[in-house]
């Protein structure tokens, strides 16, 4: 759960971008970092391999101002998407408050999305959390690829595959061009803050 510091009047909130490998989780954070560079005082932290794939996680701290008199510090994390890095993925999920599931809209990645969502469910269970209770938003990334003639999954198919039981907000997006990246982030922040305020009542 988020850490509330009554002395500094500060809340630290952990939001994790989850999803299959090469789905655009890091690109989401990079876009946010560029877009809000004037408000983000520190550098984005990334731990990558030589092949430019996320090895451990990316980390981006982000101040959103005051809520109920408390300074809210949003901490955005990504996980490594590659199947083999499950141990590190699980570590990053520790203490998570909200999740953005970045699915890959390319038709060839359909199976990978479904497997990654199942993996999220298992890893949350490890911390006695449920994917149906933690605030979660879905993002169907790479919609810009249709212009290049690359076959994409219809939104209805992705909703059926990933959102039929979650029934949460979903956004078609392009992390590369920035379409709906900020909307996705705003939605998960508002859902997570609502859940935290509710829990603190």
């Amino acid at each position: 759960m988020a850490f509330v510091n009554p002395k500094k009047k500060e809340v630290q909130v952990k939001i994790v971008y989850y999803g299959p490998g090469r789905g655009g989780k890091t690109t989401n954070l990079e876009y946010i970092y560029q877009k809000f560079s004037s408000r983000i005082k520190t550098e984005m932290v990334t731990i990558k391999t030589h092949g430019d794939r996320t090895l451990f996680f990316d980390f981006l701290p982000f101040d959103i101002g005051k809520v109920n008199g408390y300074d809210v510090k949003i901490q955005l994390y990504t996980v490594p998407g590659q199947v083999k890095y499950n141990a590190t993925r699980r570590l990053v999920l520790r203490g998570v408050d909200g999740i953005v599931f970045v699915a890959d809209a390319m038709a060839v990645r359909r199976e990978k999305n479904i497997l990654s969502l199942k993996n999220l469910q298992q890893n949350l269970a490890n911390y006695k959390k449920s994917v149906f209770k933690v605030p979660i938003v879905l993002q169907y990334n790479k919609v810009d690829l249709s212009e290049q003639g690359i076959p994409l999954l219809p939104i209805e198919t992705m909703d059926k595959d990933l959102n039929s039981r979650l029934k949460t907000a979903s956004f078609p997006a392009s992390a590369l061009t920035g379409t709906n990246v900020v909307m996705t982030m705003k939605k998960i922040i508002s859902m997570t803050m609502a859940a935290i305020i509710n829990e603190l009542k």
Partner: protein
Amino acid sequence: MSYTLGQEQLDGIEEILQRDLIDVGVRCVFLIDMAGNIIANRDNGKIKHDVYSLAALAAGNFGAVSAMAKIIGEGEFSLLFHKGKKENIHFNKIITEFLLITIFSNDISLGFLRLKVNETVEKVKQVLESVQAS
């Protein structure tokens, strides 16, 4: 794990960190939880590190080393030490959920630091355990 710390406990922890570590020459100290949240931090006023990034990386680093420990049949490595040319970092686990991280220069010997960290850990543990029990 869910926990809450009141103003009184946070004051108590910060006072311990200040008196037992900063006042004896440690540059910067922070107490974090395993999710990477900062619970308390103090420094000597001369340095400005990005403590939020440090906390996130420290929690990740400690988690990775704990996973390595399990693979080789150790329950855990309860302390870690990284040596640099000028600055050094020392990590010490407190109970199961917390980490005390100290950054210090070569003016302080590792032995002396470990002694002070051990004393601090015992004191902070008492505060944290009273919170967990309540």
